[in-house]
């Protein structure tokens, strides 16, 4: 008996219009698989990469859910470009059993190579849409803050998670896809915040050292940064402040205000995150049935990505990340 989420791309299931490889050789296209918990055949998108120097958007390929390859009901079934890319995927994966949660990111190789793009630097940007890298198992989780896939997506540069070893690698290749225990999920993602706070403290120390200020001043100011509440603020300066955090504020006010006395409608986001984390660590068994961990999980998943992205771009942080967390080959 086959898995009920399994499908096959074959001459019977794939519409004949997607089975024609005409003008271009399939070796000129490459594809990787991604995964999304609730696949939608309408999640078809043209993918652009934003390059710098000079700043421009380059069209590289398509995002195509596997289930859209067995349907002519979506809006792209007669689009010649879509048909060409779909045919390439069919040629590559014909007669293979594929999980319905599979999404294909397929690109035209010449465009990518001529612009010297490492597409793995951009893959994690798909997580904003609830689409994760497929390294081992398919996604069992949907982030409630996931954006809707639009007809065109311009991927922001993130980082190649494969150059990390240990925890960060595991987060993006396994944890985010598979961890459905919300307590465990929150704590594992929060490790990125912890790691970042550690680096932030190191960076502050270097900053003070370079400033060559009076030791007394350095001692006073540095002491503040030994407090996690302060450090998390530094780390959260790296995040994207345009995300709507209304639901987080509401949940924090409902569940934390009584014990902390804070008004989370006016506090910065990381104050709620930090207090929530402390509540989980110290008082979980008192509150576990009463708290919706999902909202906090989903927010810090987004935040962690922004934080790591910024850190890989900042010279000092990147050198520290490299020294501590990159694989030997990436160092």
């Amino acid at each position, binding site marked *: *008996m*086959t898995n009920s989420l399994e499908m096959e791309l074959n001459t019977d299931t794939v519409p*004949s219009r997607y089975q024609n490889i005409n003008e271009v050789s399939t070796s000129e296209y490459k594809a990787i698989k991604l995964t999304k918990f*609730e696949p*939608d*055949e*309408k999640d078809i998108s043209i993918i652009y990469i934003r390059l710098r120097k000079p700043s421009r958007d380059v069209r590289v390929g398509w995002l195509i859910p596997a*289930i859209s390859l067995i*349907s002519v009901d979506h809006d792209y079934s007669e689009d010649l470009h879509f048909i060409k890319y779909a045919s390439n995927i069919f040629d590559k994966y014909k007669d293979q059993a594929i999980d319905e949660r599979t999404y294909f990111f397929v690109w035209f190789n010449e465009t990518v190579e001529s612009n010297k793009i490492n597409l793995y630097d951009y893959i994690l940007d798909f997580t904003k849409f609830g689409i994760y890298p497929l390294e081992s198992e398919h996604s069992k989780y949907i982030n409630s803050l996931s954006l809707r896939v639009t007809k065109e997506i311009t991927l922001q540069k993130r980082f190649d998670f494969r150059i990390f070893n240990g925890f960060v690698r595991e987060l993006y290749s396994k944890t985010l896809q598979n961890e459905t225990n919300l307590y465990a999920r929150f704590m594992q993602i929060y490790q990125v915040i912890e790691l970042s706070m550690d680096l932030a403290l190191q960076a502050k120390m270097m900053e003070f050292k370079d400033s060559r200020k009076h030791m007394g001043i350095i001692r006073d100011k540095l002491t503040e940064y030994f407090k996690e509440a302060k450090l998390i603020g530094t780390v959260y300066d790296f995040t994207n402040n345009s995300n709507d955090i209304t639901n987080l504020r509401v949940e924090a006010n409902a569940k934390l205000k009584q014990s902390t006395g804070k008004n989370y409608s006016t506090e910065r986001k990381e104050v709620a995150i930090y207090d929530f984390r402390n509540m989980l660590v110290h008082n979980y068994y008192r509150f576990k049935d009463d708290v919706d961990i999902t909202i906090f999980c989903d927010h810090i998943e987004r935040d962690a990505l922004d934080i790591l992205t910024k850190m890989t771009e900042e010279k000092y942080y990147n050198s520290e990340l490299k020294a501590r967390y990159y694989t030997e080959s990436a160092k």
Partner: protein
Amino acid sequence: MIKITNILNDKKVQAKNIQFLIDIKSYVEISNKILENNPFQRKRVKKSGSIYNLLKEDIKSGCIIPPIVLASSSNLELESDNNPSEKDITNHLNDYRSIKILDGLQRTYSIIEVYEENSSYFDELKDEYLIRVELYLSISDTGILYRMLTLNTGQTQMTLRHQLEILFSKYLDANIDEINIIKETDNGSISTINDYNFSDLIDGYNSFLEKNELPVDRFDILQNVKTIKFMSEEKNDNMEFVDFIKCYHSMIKSFDQSLPGWVYPSDEEDVDENFKTSSNPFGKNLPKIFNRSQPITGFGAAISELVESESIQGFNDLNTLIGKLVISEDDLLLLNKHLDDVKEKSKKIGNGQRIFFRLFFKNLFDKDGRSFLKIEESLDNAKKRAMAEV
């Protein structure tokens, strides 16, 4: 050489069952022609591998294989009214276009292969290698289907849909009254309400038998048993494939008679705000709306449910109701609008549309329902329920 060994009347499917022996060479000749003339029966099971190789070796060693079961829907007359003769059998077997292999397809492939690989060996045998065959004479399509299901359950896993394709392949590129059944899957060939894709009609009848509008590619033994039970009930007479097609077509004709040559307004400005769609409308004319898999399967599943709940007795009952429909242009605009909303919400668009159509037809023809024969209300109710289900 053919030798009849036994003749029995099968009272369930109302047909004669003739048991006979046939030499391997004659059987190979006939079965090759049967398989060539039925495109859906051609495929060899991919994973047959060592089991069928073993069978071939066994046949060569003189092993007796279980009887092959054939069915003939030929109208050839018998020599005598009482009992068929060997000559009758030969005539029926030679009318190979009317023959279906009900049981023993993979064995037939093995027999053909082993004979063709060793023809001189078999031709020179002192005692001919004989094969036992059972042939149902003058059996109806429903009878064939019933026997196929009951014989195939538990054996080589063939979906009901595949069996329907084999059974009704005679309608490929054929006509039923003014209805044209087209083989090609390219939607460009469906240009009038009289044109139907063979595959869509099979989908629809499959949905009727299985009471399920959604495509299921996998063999499901429990579903098979339920379908057998449904078919074996006497009250389900007159629910043949052709009856299904004619009933559905009469419903489309009623739309066409009320709104002849209807097309979706070409200018978006001419569409009322309440009916505007966010993407391409589902169907810009009647064939594009109704001569497709989604409404046909939805119709099949809905009617099946109504028959089971005894809201209607069968297709004849339905034909009467269809004559009472009052249809307006806004109904088709509303249908497109609702389908657009369902599409927006559905992760699998085709499935969402099938669910919508099942709910629509069920609401429309349910005598006990509040939107009985009211198209607009049926559409609205269908949309509400479909949005919750997708």
